């Protein structure tokens, strides 16, 4: 039975078959195929949610290794495993709308989630304070454009420098937007090429075949 899983041709056929089931009905009216594709999509949605177990297993394995080898910070790993298990047990037994679960979420998750993203404001400030040097004409363009948009974004600027608005909007709505569009087109082109390579069997590392070959 393992030949079924180990065969590159069979796995590639599965990949291509389900790709066609998802792709073709969009362009041709085929209600039975579309219904089949919708059911497969629901299955795929559920399969995706099973992968969280892998994350939890990996975290347990890593933490247990730290604890066993008494590496630096091993006590924090004990704390992590206890807190994680406690919260999962509370969630499964009492439900995610219970006061205890919501208390843990509002006390730990929500403030720290905001902190770990909010810290980026500090890093961006210090990065631009250190790195934004007008060493060349291109760097000067970057800094000047950045300063114009930064000035406009501060609401107070409208009170003493109202004329800055059209210049800032020109930079963001035209140049900034053009940059984003250019990258979107380039990224999708790259994605289409990569997808084609996967479907043609040229990129099968995600299925684990490259490791076996080596």
């Amino acid at each position, binding site marked *: 039975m393992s030949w079924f*899983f180990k065969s590159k041709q069979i796995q590639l056929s*599965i*990949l291509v078959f389900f*790709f066609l*089931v*998802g*792709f073709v009905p969009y362009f041709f009216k085929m209600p039975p195929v579309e219904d089949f594709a919708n059911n497969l999509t*629901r*299955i*795929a*949605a*559920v*399969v995706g*949610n*099973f992968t969280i*177990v892998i*994350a*939890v*297993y990996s975290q347990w394995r890593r933490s247990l290794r730290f604890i066993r080898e008494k590496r630096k910070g091993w006590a*924090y790993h004990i*704390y992590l*495993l206890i807190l*994680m298990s406690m919260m*999962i047990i509370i*969630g499964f037994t009492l439900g995610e709308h219970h*006061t205890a679960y919501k208390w*843990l979420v*509002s*006390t730990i998750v929500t*403030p720290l989630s*905001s*902190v770990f993203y*909010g*810290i*980026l*404001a500090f890093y961006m*400030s210090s990065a*631009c304070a250190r790195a934004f040097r007008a060493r060349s004409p*291109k*760097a000067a*363009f*970057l*800094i000047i*454009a950045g300063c114009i*948009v930064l000035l406009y974004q501060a609401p107070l600027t409208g009170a003493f420098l109202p004329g800055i608005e059209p210049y*800032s909007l*020109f930079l963001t709505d*035209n140049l*900034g937007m053009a*940059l*984003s*569009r*250019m990258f979107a*087109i*380039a990224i*999708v082109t790259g994605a*289409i090429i990569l*997808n084609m390579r996967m479907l043609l069997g040229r990129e099968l590392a*995600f299925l*684990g075949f490259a490791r076996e070959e080596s």
Partner: protein
Amino acid sequence: MDLLTYLSVVLAIFIAFCGFTTLYGKGNPLYSWAEFSYLATATAMSVMWSWTATFGVRYAIQGLIRGELIWVPAIILGILMWFRVYPKYSYLSRVSIAFTMGIALGWGLRTSIFTSFIRQISATIVNLWVPEYGIMYFIARTTIAVSIITMMSFFIYTTEIKGPHLWSATIGEYIMYTAFGAVFAQTFMGRLSLFVGHMQDYMFPVWKQPYTIGAALLVFVILLALDKKGLAQKLAAA
């Protein structure tokens, strides 16, 4: 306000400032505690939501109990996915990965070609001059079209850049740097708003302000004391 909510707010403020201690530049036990707390609870939350979400694991099991046989292959494929972590049996996960990747590619490719490729190109190649919209519209559309074409020409590496291509690539490079400046400012606005909004959460209602300022000072004093005694990095996780 009940005691539990009050404790939650005060502890949240304290743990948030413990998280900010990473800005001090050295590892310290306060940050390590905050980091591991977040890792534990965020992972637990993800587990819960994978279980309870629409099309989560519980949804499939409940469907199976109701007699919907469509969830049998879903559960089998999901369990096969778990074998990814065992090197000896990881080949069992291939069929799950092939299935989900095939469906994802099929659904993704059929629409992203339109939204991120064709529609973006067709929005660029439009009438540059429309009399009703005036000269500013013409300048804007021309700028967009010229910017995209010249910026793309900068990224062509398969031929030697010379002649008109060199001119186009150089103009594209200058436009790109200017655009990066504008985009950086928008990104900074986003990050700053995030931080300001976060601090607003701890400064309003006004009764929270003494706790916020107190927690900030307390954490700072503890950090300085630990650093002075040489304990900060010794007691940190990394």
